[in-house]
């Protein structure tokens, strides 16, 4: 009954998306807890609803086409924060570029090596490769290199949350105290979620993180087709 009612109305899917995100956003604004990311809460709410009401994902996704069509635009606009932070870049160009490049190579390289050692299947490993890139870039990269974009998107969210929660603690343990270095590490490993966390640490950390996020995303897009040859 509910399933038919949902499927009949072409707006129900998008209404559900925006409504649940609104709830998630409100919860996050109140608590400011990294784990309560609006995208995580809203996805859990929607998955539970679809499963209980027995609505197939295809039906829900079809009704979100309007959002899906605008999705590629979301990467292009990242040029603006990159441009705004260009002055910080000028001051520390060498350490920033080196840090993001080494970090991106290390995370992709170690992922492939560890995955191969324990025997993670190739299709999953390929889908995991762009996990540290921001989602607008990761979803397209996954498609190009033959991954499962739905899996990649979820892994990107999980990576962001893990990096956002554990990142500052891990960096402290590893005696990385420099503000620039902390921001670069958080932004290049856990994109937007890491950047929100970095701004909590300080203004410098935040600016560095948003810069690192855009550079790391672009680098991931360029390096992924090369790394996929190793898988």
């Amino acid at each position, binding site marked *: 009954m509910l399933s038919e009612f949902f499927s009949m109305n072409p707006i129900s899917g998008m209404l559900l*998306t925006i409504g649940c995100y609104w709830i998630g956003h409100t919860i996050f604004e109140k608590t400011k807890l990294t784990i309560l990311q609006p995208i995580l809460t809203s*996805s859990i709410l929607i998955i539970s609803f679809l499963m209980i009401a027995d609505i197939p*994902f295809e039906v829900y*996704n079809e009704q979100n086409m309007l959002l899906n069509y605008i999705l590629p635009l979301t990467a292009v606009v*990242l*040029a603006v924060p990159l441009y705004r932070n260009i002055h910080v870049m000028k001051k520390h160009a060498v350490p920033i570029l080196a840090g993001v490049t080494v970090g991106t190579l290390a995370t992709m390289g170690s992922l492939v090596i560890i995955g191969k050692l324990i025997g993670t299947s190739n299709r999953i490993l390929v889908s995991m490769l762009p996990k540290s890139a921001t989602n607008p870039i990761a979803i397209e990269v996954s498609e190009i290199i033959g991954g499962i974009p*739905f899996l990649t*998107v979820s892994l990107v969210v999980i990576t962001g949350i893990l990096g956002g929660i554990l990142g500052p603690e891990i960096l402290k343990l*590893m005696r990385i105290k420099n503000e620039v270095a902390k921001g670069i*590490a958080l932004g290049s490993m856990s994109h937007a979620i890491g950047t929100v966390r970095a701004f909590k640490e300080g203004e410098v950390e935040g600016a560095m993180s948003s810069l690192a996020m855009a550079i790391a995303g672009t680098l991931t897009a360029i390096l992924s087709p090369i790394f996929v040859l190793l898988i």
Partner: protein
Amino acid sequence: MILKQFFIILAALFLGYSIVAVVNLPIPSNVVGLLILFIAMCIGIVKEKHVDKVSDFIIKYLAVFFVAPTVGIMQYFKLIGDKFFYIIGPLILSIIIGLFAAGATTQIIIQIMDKKRLSVGKKGLGGNDVK
């Protein structure tokens, strides 16, 4: 004007698609679009005020666009359940390694550059003393 801002961003994406189609690059069109918009801003063809409102709005609510794709994970619950440790193990370890690599590289290079700057400064002072 919102319409003009939207047009410029769409034009950058359009150019991105065109370039990727012509050159046959294995890079996403929207990343090429990002680079085109960034270069256009650096050269000064596009000013920040030409794209700021639409960009800020999209970036603020970026995650909304990824709710439906994230919900898509429900199609793969069985695959993930079976392979959970094969996924989460490499994921966590590679994040820790990447954090360390990025942070340590940046920190060490900054320290080296600061030391160089400091020693150059000392030389300058020494020279003054001789005078």
